[in-house]
């Protein structure tokens, strides 16, 4: 089986001009993700797990290395080099990212936030709402909350809305950054079930989990990151 995502030699450092510092974030990272499988990223705080996900999504510009993504037509794109338009297209169609915290407008309802990715793909409003409701129910979000903006929701409720939005359009590659950190054991269980289901549907997943037992249960492959070595300032 060909990998969906093949990362080699990925490094990221931040150059802070004001402080005249180079901050290393991750270095020499090698990761593969296969369709229908879950690769877990582990390692101590500061080893750059989240940075790897952000580099794949291009929220961070990788400093070096390649991030090869294979699309439906078997075309390989280096996400580290691809044009902004190609990245936007892949974000819309192929790659989903569930971050730890829900960032959304304080005036949109939970259901509207959930179905945004479907609408962006041109799914009809009615069909999008149907799929959104199904998923929220599956994630045990109480129905009385669906019409409300998530601003006042608990951490766990917000996190499930965030997950629902990430999963609703069934991306081919899913990036998960601690999606269960604020969930109680019961809802963590339903999230784990859902992740199993979408794996069976063929979605490739790269995940950072707060709970080690989830790694054990769900991961087909585990990659442990080390804290990056300090980077030498570039010669001027």
């Amino acid at each position: 089986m060909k990998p969906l995502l093949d990362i080699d030699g990925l490094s990221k450092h931040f150059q802070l001009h004001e402080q005249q510092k180079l901050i290393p974030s991750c270095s020499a990272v090698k990761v593969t993700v296969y369709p229908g499988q879950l690769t877990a990223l582990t390692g101590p705080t500061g080893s750059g797990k989240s940075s790897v996900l952000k580099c794949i999504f291009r929220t961070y510009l990788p400093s070096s290395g390649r991030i090869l993504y294979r699309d439906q037509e078997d075309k390989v794109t280096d996400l580290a080099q691809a044009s902004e338009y190609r990245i936007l297209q892949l974000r819309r169609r192929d790659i989903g990212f569930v971050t730890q915290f829900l960032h959304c407008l304080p005036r949109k309802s939970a259901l509207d936030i959930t179905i945004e990715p479907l609408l962006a793909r041109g799914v009809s409003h009615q069909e999008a709402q149907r799929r959104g409701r199904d998923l929220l129910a599956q994630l045990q979000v109480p129905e009385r909350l669906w019409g409300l903006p998530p601003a006042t929701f608990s951490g766990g409720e917000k996190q499930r809305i965030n997950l629902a939005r990430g999963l609703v359009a069934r991306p081919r590659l899913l990036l998960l950054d601690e999606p269960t950190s604020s969930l109680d054991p019961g809802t963590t269980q339903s999230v784990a079930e859902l992740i199993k289901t979408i794996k069976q549907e063929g979605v490739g997943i790269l995940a950072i989990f707060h709970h080690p037992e989830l790694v054990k249960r769900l991961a087909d492959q585990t990659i442990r990151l080390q804290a990056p070595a300090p980077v030498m300032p570039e010669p001027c």
Partner: protein
Amino acid sequence: MKKILEVRGLSRIHGPGCPLCFENTGADAETNVCASCGSVVAAQDVSLDLHQGEILGIVGESGSGKSTVVKTLFFDAEPSAGEARFFDGDQQLDLFSLNAARQRWLRNHRFGMVYQNPNLGLNFNVSAGGNIAERLLMSDVANYARIRQRARDLLTRTEVLGERMDESPRRFSGGMQQRVQIAKALATRPPLLLLDEVTTGLDLSVQARILDLILEIQHELNTAMIVVTHDLGVIRLLAGRTLVMKYGQVIESGLTDQVLEDPQHAYTQRLVASAL
């Protein structure tokens, strides 16, 4: 997505200009004023692409040249150098070499502009409905009943009360004036909409509803937009890609979330660090 606009090497110099103008000004020189000839370089070698249905943000502080870019594209100001190609159906138009009549035609039919100052976009001597009618007349809709109906539809769409369409926009609040401007700009369903600081100076609640309206329009009509603002919040909400300008130059460009979370240029890092 299809490309709708391509700008290359756009510059605008106020004053005589000299061969050293570009060298003497810009982000590194930290000035707009050429030390050799005293000319003011408002925009220097700006290039950008815009695709159908896309919102491109341009951020920068006052004097960075961001408004100059949209003003030249709307023919409110003349460029000193550079090219802009507008792709309309299977036509390709070289904007700055068109004659004045063709430029006026494009302004009236294919482009829309919303200014920070409603005085620039609206005629306060006619009613809100009349403002929209003016634009429809210029774009060859001549039937009175149809014009009135369309004006009413547009104002309703932008949440201006239909029963106030016969009042002068002078009597409207700032937020409502912006809505009338947006309705007027949309009257001809232009594929390109330019928005210059449209929410600056409005109350936060009014700002939010105008921004929501802009997003809804993008979804409904697939209008391509260039949004000029100094407000990073506006960019975060609206724009997929962003250009950062300083002293007339584009110093950084990228996906909006990348520009905000991993800014590369020292100035952008300072700008992001100063956001509330």
